[in-house]
């Protein structure tokens, strides 16, 4: 399913959880894994000096330094590298998200794997600023392939995935996320949980929806799931439909926990705007931040269509 995987890393402990999943995937699909590290932002245009991502020191970017960084990366992931032939350690100098996207485009990457942050203390501060790191945000927005974000230790190996949760709000963008989730569930033999939340907090001020009205909304959503997704199952029958009422990110997380979800697949954004112009939706941001399992953000149909 994936022949080329790009694992973008800072080489710091914040990427360790993502690293485990990346190497696990490479092993499962016998894919080519690009372990990619952006050395640092040049101190000024075309400068010989860069700021090292790990130490924060200004370094001269000569071949010795680059080789040293590659060696460090190799040592960092030494225990995880089981297939040296299919693992390529690459570095670049520049703005991280631009270099990641450049490599993904050049190598025709099928899947990008990243941690949500590059600095540990971001997690604490995220509540008062945008929740995910800016590099991840920009990569998720512009990448043509699915981006899997791993924020927490992943206890289940990818190859043993048994429950994939696909969250939908019926927007066009979620169609790509559905295809990714269905194909993956089919490939690894997992159960696909198609989930929708009827957002009852939205409505005229002060109006409270009664139970009958909520139940009607739920039934309507179930019918919509059947016409929109079940008709595209292509023989895959290991699925479940669930519709609940509440706040979308709260309910998705609750549902994923109840079903021991191993992966949550969501669209990058859901509003009717061009993918390139969209910012990461608040639902997916909240889910990425809090989920104990990996979250896949799918933005384009390119790598997931039939």
């Amino acid at each position, binding site marked *: 399913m994936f022949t080329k995987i790009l694992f973008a890393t800072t080489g710091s402990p914040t990427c360790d959880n993502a690293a485990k999943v990346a190497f696990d995937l490479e092993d499962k699909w016998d894919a080519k894994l690009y372990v990619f590290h952006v050395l640092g932002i040049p101190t000024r245009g075309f400068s010989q000096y860069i700021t090292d991502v790990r130490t924060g020191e200004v370094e001269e970017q000569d071949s010795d330094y680059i080789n040293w960084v590659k060696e460090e990366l190799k040592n960092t992931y030494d225990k995880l590298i089981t297939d040296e032939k299919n693992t390529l350690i690459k570095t670049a100098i520049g703005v991280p998200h631009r270099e990641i996207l450049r490599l993904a485009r050049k190598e025709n990457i099928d899947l990008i794997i990243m941690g949500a942050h590059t600095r540990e203390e971001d997690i*604490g501060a995220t509540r008062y600023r945008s929740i995910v790191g800016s590099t991840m945000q920009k990569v998720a927005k512009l990448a043509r392939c699915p981006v899997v974000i791993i924020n927490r230790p992943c*206890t289940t190996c990818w190859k043993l995935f048994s429950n994939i949760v696909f969250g939908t709000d019926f927007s066009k963008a979620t169609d790509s996320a559905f295809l990714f989730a269905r194909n993956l569930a089919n490939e690894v033999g997992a159960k696909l949980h198609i989930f929708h939340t009827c957002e009852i907090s939205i409505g005229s001020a002060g109006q409270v929806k009664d139970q009958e009205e909520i139940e009607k909304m739920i039934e309507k959503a179930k019918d919509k799931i059947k016409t929109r997704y079940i008709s595209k199952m292509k023989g895959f029958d290991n699925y479940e439909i669930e519709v609940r009422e509440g706040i979308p990110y709260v309910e998705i997380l609750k549902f994923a926990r109840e079903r021991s979800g*191993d992966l949550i697949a969501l669209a990058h954004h859901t509003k009717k705007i061009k993918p390139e112009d969209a910012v990461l939706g608040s639902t997916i941001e909240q889910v990425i931040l809090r989920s*104990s*399992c990996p979250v896949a953000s799918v933005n384009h149909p390119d790598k997931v269509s039939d």
Partner: protein
Amino acid sequence: MNLITLKSDGIISRSDSDLETDLLSLLSCQIKLEKKFTLRSCFFMLEKYPMLSRLNPFFPAIREQYNTCPKNKCIWDEITNLEFSKTVEMTGFPKKRLEIYNTFLGVCEKERIEIKSMQLEHLLDITINLGKVRHIIFGDQIDLFEFDTVFTLFEFIEGILWELSFQTNPKHCEIRR
């Protein structure tokens, strides 16, 4: 003057009288914790004053987990106490900004550890202490200072519920059908 005490049985008291009403006016009060105030005391408090639990949409799910936990001995040997503290962070790059946020961490000897991935059943009977304000200057090259500070009831409840709203790691992975 504006000091309230959070008792280990969940009661909020001011000047030795237990408070039953007018909770909103208490949110800005400075808090003091009774010596044996644990995370379980926090749940007692939120059960006694349900309006306070509305500060976080995840509370109903957290309460469900809480109800499945044993009634006592919910501790983790390595954690001596839980610490609620505050961080003031100045960042100079790429944009200048100042962040102020609360943290709720486990204290293991002198080290602070994240409790996000831990099960509630390992935390409930651990004592909570109020910590200091940590002043961090310029994110990556960290200079750290610590100062005494005060916390309000709002900060305390909202900060703890925020931390508990992270999904813990699953107890075991479900092996393929």
